[in-house]
């Protein structure tokens, strides 16, 4: 059973014992029990459990509840390991066949992946285009271990990097290794992690604090959720290594409250690690002490900013303050504090296990390793993808993502959420790294990548992001509080068809002032979505302002829907979906849209089987 390990050797013996256990030898059915829950994986798991019992398969099969496999689009996902057979869109009724076939060493053909990007059903996970083009380093355990089982993590060489650091390296050697790896902060700004650690290590004052920022708030980003839910021990191990390097004795995991499963898995992982002597006092008998607490956010986007996050842990309103002093000098409770993001910490065990040189072999000259992107929006294969830095946008959107659905054209990729910008089609072959993205007016950000097609209006999108930052602005500094509001007013006016000449110039001027004068990162980056859409899609702004026309037919004040009476078959589908009850007509009587009530949502347009709804 669990008992505290008093030496790093004790950890090795434990790993061998765990690996020898019968359940680690069995053929495993790995089912996503996190993201796929929205698609019914809980019911699938229950059905599988029942079938394993019915078919007396308990001794040869293991049912494993894993974190996110990444390929959310075709979930619920199930992988048979070690064979690597991938089943997609699994339903409870498939459980009997899956168990029976796996026992016989056969494959259930009808559940294999077939996509528009493939000719025949693909048996193995690693042959599916979505996975084939990825480099899964940080995600190496996600979907392969039960995140609530420390045994699974240990069997997969977990805590090996920690033992290496504590047993064979001095704290300075750890920092040097991280510096040599070229790891940069994955939270968005891309500051070299090793340098940040060095500042904090050298800062006078005790105790030192270590914080993991898991307040993933960018709309369109969910990679930290994937890591916390799917591989929570990797985050804790990364934090432990950092604590050792910096000399921090107390730590906080600051987790977004909207992520209940992440909170549950992290809490469980913390308790299990503590029971094994991996957290608390005298860790693995080395004298290192690290006490970790979990704090749940309370719903404020600005708390992703490090000084605001610190204020929130201290029990105050989450408002940022000006820097310097930097948290490394004076952070939590006025003490030296180091803050890194989830994905950054999860990279640390990889670096120590593989060595800095091997790690740095992946990526571009100034951006090393991999980056996880949350691929969403108008793209066929949505999900979490991990690519080497330097891969092109084309490889991500078309190679992994399978391109834009419904035969639509790729228009742009929105990268970096409300702090980022749009990368248009002309830059599809741009190698993705921190610097190249900055050059084209976007940012790496935390890794949200939302694909836009020709039905997305860029004015509407810019206005959407401004609305977001406007409601999330904490109100402390004028440029952000008032500047973003004035910008939003102009954009709203343009979207309503009341734009006037000179509006775009005013937006640019205001945007530059807000960037230059805001107190924190939220305000300093808030105008980016507006500025970048103006840079690449100025013609759309002009169409709204001069011709009172929305080329993407999204801005509802600028489009009208009507029904072509000749085409209408009076089927009633549009009438049923209309949220405003604006469609009149009976069976066999052509339908009419009452313009006064129409909210121009486009639901009728989408649903009409004969394309009788006309947009103008």
């Amino acid at each position, binding site marked *: 059973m669990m008992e505290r390990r008093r030496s790093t050797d004790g950890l090795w013996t434990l790993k061998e014992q765990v690996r020898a256990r019968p359940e680690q030898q069995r053929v495993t059915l790995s089912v996503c029990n996190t993201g796929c829950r929205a698609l019914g994986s809980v019911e699938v798991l229950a059905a599988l459990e029942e079938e394993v019992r019915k078919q007396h398969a308990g001794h040869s099969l293991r049912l494993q509840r894993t974190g996110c496999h990444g390929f959310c689009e075709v979930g619920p996902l199930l992988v048979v390991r070690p064979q690597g057979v991938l089943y997609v869109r699994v339903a409870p009724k498939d459980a009997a066949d899956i168990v029976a076939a796996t026992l016989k060493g056969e494959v259930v053909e009808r559940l294999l992946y077939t996509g528009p990007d493939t000719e025949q059903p693909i048996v193995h996970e690693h042959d599916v285009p979505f996975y084939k083009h990825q480099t899964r380093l940080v995600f190496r355990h996600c979907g392969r271990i039960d995140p609530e089982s420390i045994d699974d993590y240990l069997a997969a060489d977990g805590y090996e990097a920690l033992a290496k650091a504590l047993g064979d390296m001095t704290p300075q050697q750890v920092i040097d290794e991280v510096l040599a790896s070229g790891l940069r902060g994955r939270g968005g700004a891309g500051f070299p992690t090793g340098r940040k650690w060095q500042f904090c290590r050298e800062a006078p004052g005790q105790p030192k604090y270590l914080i993991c920022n898991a307040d993933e708030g960018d709309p369109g980003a969910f990679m930290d959720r994937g890591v916390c839910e799917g591989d929570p021990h990797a985050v804790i191990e990364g934090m432990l290594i950092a604590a050792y390097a910096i000399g921090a004795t107390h730590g906080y995991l600051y987790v977004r409250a909207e992520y209940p499963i992440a909170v549950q898995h992290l809490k469980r992982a913390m308790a299990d690690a503590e029971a094994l002597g991996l957290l608390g006092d005298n860790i693995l008998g080395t004298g290192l002490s690290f006490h970790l607490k979990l704090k749940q956010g309370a*719903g404020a986007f600005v708390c992703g900013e490090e000084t605001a996050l610190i204020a929130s842990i201290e*029990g105050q309103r*989450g408002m940022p303050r000006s820097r310097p002093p930097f948290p490394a000098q004076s952070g939590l409770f006025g003490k030296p504090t180091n803050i890194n993001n989830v994905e950054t910490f999860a990279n640390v065990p990889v670096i120590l296990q593989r060595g800095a040189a091997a790690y740095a072999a992946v990526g571009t000259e100034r951006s090393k390793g991999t980056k996880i992107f949350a691929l*969403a929006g108008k793209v066929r294969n949505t999900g979490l993808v991990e690519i080497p830095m330097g891969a092109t946008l084309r490889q991500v959107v078309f190679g992994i993502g399978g391109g834009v659905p419904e035969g639509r054209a790729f228009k742009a990729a929105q990268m970096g959420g409300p702090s980022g910008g749009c990368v248009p089609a002309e830059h599809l072959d741009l190698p993705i790294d921190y610097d190249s993205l900055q050059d084209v007016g976007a940012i790496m950000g935390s890794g949200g990548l939302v694909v836009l097609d020709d039905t997305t209006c860029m004015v509407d*999108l810019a206005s959407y992001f401004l609305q977001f930052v406007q409601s*999330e602005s904490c109100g402390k500094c004028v440029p952000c509080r008032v500047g973003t509001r004035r910008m939003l007013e102009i954009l709203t006016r343009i979207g309503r068809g009341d734009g006037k000449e000179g509006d775009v110039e005013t937006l640019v001027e205001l945007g530059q002032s807000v960037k230059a004068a805001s107190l924190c990162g939220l305000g300093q980056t808030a105008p980016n979505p507006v500025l970048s859409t103006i840079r690449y899609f100025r013609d759309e702004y002009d169409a709204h302002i001069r011709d009172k026309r929305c080329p993407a037919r999204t801005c509802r004040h600028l489009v009208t829907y009507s029904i072509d009476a000749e085409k209408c078959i009076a089927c009633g589908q549009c009438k*049923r979906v209309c949220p405003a009850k604006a469609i009149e007509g009976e069976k066999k009587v052509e339908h009419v849209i009452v313009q006064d009530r129409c909210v121009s949502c486009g639901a009728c347009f989408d649903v009409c089987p004969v394309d009788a709804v006309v947009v103008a």
Partner: protein
Amino acid sequence: MAKQGTAMRAALKQVLERHTTDKSELIPIIQEAQDAIGYLPEDVLLDVSRHLNVPEAAIYGVATFYAQFYLEPQGRHRIRVCRGTACHVRGSAQIRPVIESKLKVKDGQTTDDLLFTYETVACVGCCALAPVMMIDDRYYGRLTPEKAEAVIDEYMRQADAG
């Protein structure tokens, strides 16, 4: 009302016993108090103020700063419709009016029968399944207006059944 007040006090007392009087305990305390009571009535905040020796104004400031604290009674089920980027470009704007007209509520409001509280949130981290809504801790993905309505009907049916 008096009885309700006593029950609240008892629930709060349990929460306070789990925490020290350190000021940094404020947010966890009111998070747990809200979990136990459903919202944060004035009396509760006053008790927290005395426990931590933090001015009432500062507590009110914190409770109104964060989106997740509620000073009014909340519905039994919380509907959160995501208006994140991915949901936005995949049509979450069509989901909201359906719910709003069906339940006769606007963003942040609670139905008269206290069955639902409805709000829109920035992102629930489920972008691959956009558009998405959450009811309590359950996710509903790839929504259409009809699907959203059907989900809510189901909750109403269950409430009627008791």
